[in-house]
């Protein structure tokens, strides 16, 4: 490791270094002069809110994005990457947050696509089995990806990267979609990779994980590096302060006024999927009283989307009695009819489901408000009423936007989500069904949204929240149920729902064997 002309005492031990790395999109600085150094046998956390520039930075290191300014050093030498092939050739591997997998191809084909194709498919398949056994990441090479669970999909990504025998791995929010137990298994693998001398750049916003796993942490905010610190010497609060820049408001529940009237009842709801890869809902029952918040936990893709569609009326049920809204059988009713009964719905996807991206906020207010809010008279739109809704949502929920009535797509994720939740809450619903209320939303906006849900419940509405964020559910829900393979567990009181119990339910292992006919993929 004798680099000629090297003046730095430790340059021999630095594996990857970025110097003043900058990425500009027009006048927007996604990365502003970022310096970061990663050493072998180190798990280095990259912390930051959404939009802090984490993804841009790692995509640059992986060669997917060309930097506008600055340079990268790899083992002390200047590195210019023409593309991911160049990065892989040096020993840089990446596990993407949104998996870069191909649903209709087999596991082995997916792995082959991530390699540079220098060995035969047969030899590659054999090596795949060997590597997956070696690291305790079992995979069946012949299965097609769409049949696999999220945890198994992530295993493919990791095995694919490991087969390149990388010196440096980038993992982008690897635990976002895992159960706590699956995350623990992943940490074992990561520790092992570290002990083999590899370096890992670990992107996350889960602070307890970072404190537990990582040796070093670099914090980004608004495209700038805020600091590099030792996470074990920081507190979760001090890390959060650096990420957000201000103290985060704690949400607080007003003492709930539980009424005895059930507002939302689901009776033995079963529904076959309408898509080839959909989930079959099986015998779901629940009862939700006014003033109560029920949280539904579960790994994504276990029927939450299908359940939302059944509740909102996007899919109708043959038997009207399966869904009862405020005392009225509603299983056969359309979305509009359900809204007229006092129900409101906030889907997971903000753009394209919650709002029409290229339409103005006032038009988007009309899309859900037309049934009951005096926005339409004799078929004509009352523009003053739609604009008033936008103004009220803006004021009550601190929606920040460039002009009074912009296109939905021009708002940031957090502000758009505040608008959508506000739009529904302003209709004074008696039942609110909301899916992933704070997914991809910055901490400040998340606090506003959670507080709004608590206030709505305090006013007597029944709220059903689907979320993959267990901390969020623990914060706001009175009871928590878990969805697994289209079935819903008995709700637990939030106080009794510790992470381990929920984790077991999320993995399906707490259900009785007869409930799980097809063994959960190991």
């Amino acid at each position, binding site marked *: 490791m004798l680099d000629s002309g090297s003046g730095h005492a430790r340059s021999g031990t630095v594996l990857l270094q970025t110097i003043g790395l900058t990425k500009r999109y027009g006048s927007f600085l996604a990365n502003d002069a970022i310096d970061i150094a990663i050493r072998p046998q180190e798990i280095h956390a990259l912390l930051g809110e959404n939009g802090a520039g984490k993804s841009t930075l790692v995509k640059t290191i992986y060669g997917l994005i060309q930097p506008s300014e600055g340079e990268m050093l790899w083992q002390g030498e200047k590195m210019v990457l023409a593309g991911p092939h160049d990065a892989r050739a040096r020993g840089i591997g990446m596990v993407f947050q949104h998996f870069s997998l191909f649903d209709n191809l087999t596991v082995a084909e997916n792995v082959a696509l991530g390699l540079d194709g220098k060995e035969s498919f047969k030899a590659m398949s054999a090596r795949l089995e060997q590597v997956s056994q070696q690291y305790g990441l079992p995979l069946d090479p012949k299965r097609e990806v769409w049949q696999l669970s999220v945890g198994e999909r992530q295993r493919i990504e990791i095995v694919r990267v490991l087969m390149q025998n990388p010196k440096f791995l980038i993992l982008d929010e690897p635990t976002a979609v895992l159960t706590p137990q699956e995350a623990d298994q992943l940490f074992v693998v990561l520790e092992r990779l570290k002990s083999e001398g590899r370096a890992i750049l670990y992107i996350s916003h889960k602070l307890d994980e970072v404190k537990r796993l990582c040796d070093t942490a670099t914090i980004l905010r608004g495209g700038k590096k805020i600091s590099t610190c030792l996470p074990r010497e920081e507190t979760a609060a001090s890390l959060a302060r650096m990420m957000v820049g201000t103290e985060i408001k704690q949400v607080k529940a007003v003492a709930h006024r539980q009424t005895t009237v059930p507002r939302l009842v689901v009776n033995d709801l079963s529904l076959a999927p309408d898509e*080839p890869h959909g989930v079959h809902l099986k015998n779901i029952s629940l009862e939700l009283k006014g003033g109560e918040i029920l949280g539904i936990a579960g790994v994504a893709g276990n029927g939450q989307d299908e359940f939302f569609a059944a509740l909102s009326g996007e899919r109708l049920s043959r038997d009207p009695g399966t869904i009862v809204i405020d005392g009225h059988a509603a299983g056969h009713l359309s979305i509009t009819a359900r809204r007229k009964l006092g129900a409101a719905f906030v889907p997971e996807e903000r753009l394209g489901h919650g709002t029409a991206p290229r339409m103005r906020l006032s038009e988007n207010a009309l899309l859900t408000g037309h049934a009951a809010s005096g926005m339409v008279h004799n078929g004509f739109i009352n523009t003053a009423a739609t604009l008033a809704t936008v103004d009220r949502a803006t004021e009550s929920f601190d929606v920040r936007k460039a002009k009074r009535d912009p296109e939905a797509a021009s708002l940031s994720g957090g502000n758009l989500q505040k608008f959508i939740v506000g739009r529904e809450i302003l209709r004074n619903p008696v039942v609110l069904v909301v899916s992933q209320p704070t997914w991809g939303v910055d901490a400040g906006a998340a606090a506003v949204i959670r507080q709004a849900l608590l206030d709505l419940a305090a006013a007597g509405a029944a709220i059903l929240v689907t979320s993959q964020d267990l901390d969020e559910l623990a914060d706001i829900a009175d009871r928590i149920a878990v969805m697994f393979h289209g079935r819903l567990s008995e709700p637990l009181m939030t106080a009794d729902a510790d992470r381990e119990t929920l984790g077991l339910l999320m993995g399906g292992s707490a259900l009785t064997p007869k409930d799980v006919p097809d063994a959960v993929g190991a």
Partner: protein
Amino acid sequence: MELLEAIILAVLAASTPLLLAASGELLVERAGVLNLGVEGMMIVGAACGFAGAWATGSTLIGALCGIFAGIALSLVFALMTLGLAVNQVATGLALTILGIGVSGLIGAGFVGERISTAPRLYIPGLTTLPFVGKILFGEDGFVYVSIALIVAIWYFLYRTRAGLILRAIGDNHVSAHALGYPVLKIRTLAVMFGGGCAGLAGAYLPLAYTPFFVPGMTAGRGWIALALVVFASWLPGRLVIGAYLFGAVSILQLHAQGWGVGVPSQLMSALPYLATVVVLVLISRTRSGGSTAPAALGTVFVPDR
């Protein structure tokens, strides 16, 4: 026996342009691009193919002219949909209208001209075998090329790395880009290949099927080829079956008229299209068992850099 032989020969001839055009479109759609301009590329291929063969007297040069005409038109499509990220459906429809116009312009001077049709294979001893001789060993070159082509496409898709990459791009172009594959470049090549196949399929009509050129002589075969790809659920094996089935339907309706079957001839002429509709309905009703449609089919991709 002789009638059966004649029917089989006619079915093979009628099916070949369908198979050629659909083979190309299958590869294009497997790459995630929906080019609805097959009919337009075919008709331009027919006009240019006839022009080439008329000028030189060579079927081969005519066929090459057809192929290059198809590629040229497909490049317009590639420039619009891949380069400028325009809607693929609208561009494909526009391409068909453009192709019909261009072919009329090119072919105007050739209407009424005749050329000699493509030579047929003749192997002494084999071609003279009773019944199978002419069917297996007495076809024109296009028939053998069409079969070789679909076998080659199958081998390419399922046995080569390049084919795997092409399938991956059709399944998820975002992932393919993230792994560093040149999505737009590969799609452009696929579109060009599809254009060449459509051009060849079009050239077959005036070079081998009939010895003259008539405006609009593709008569909707490009649309049938598009339906065929869906009918085959994007699988090469089923594409061959579908092509010969559709060819057979179009021939049988001619014979049915000859036999005096009491069905209006217009209805019989509509049979291939009706069959297409029925097949599409059947497919959409039985799709549940693992769809094979390329997931990214018809979607626009703009790489971020």
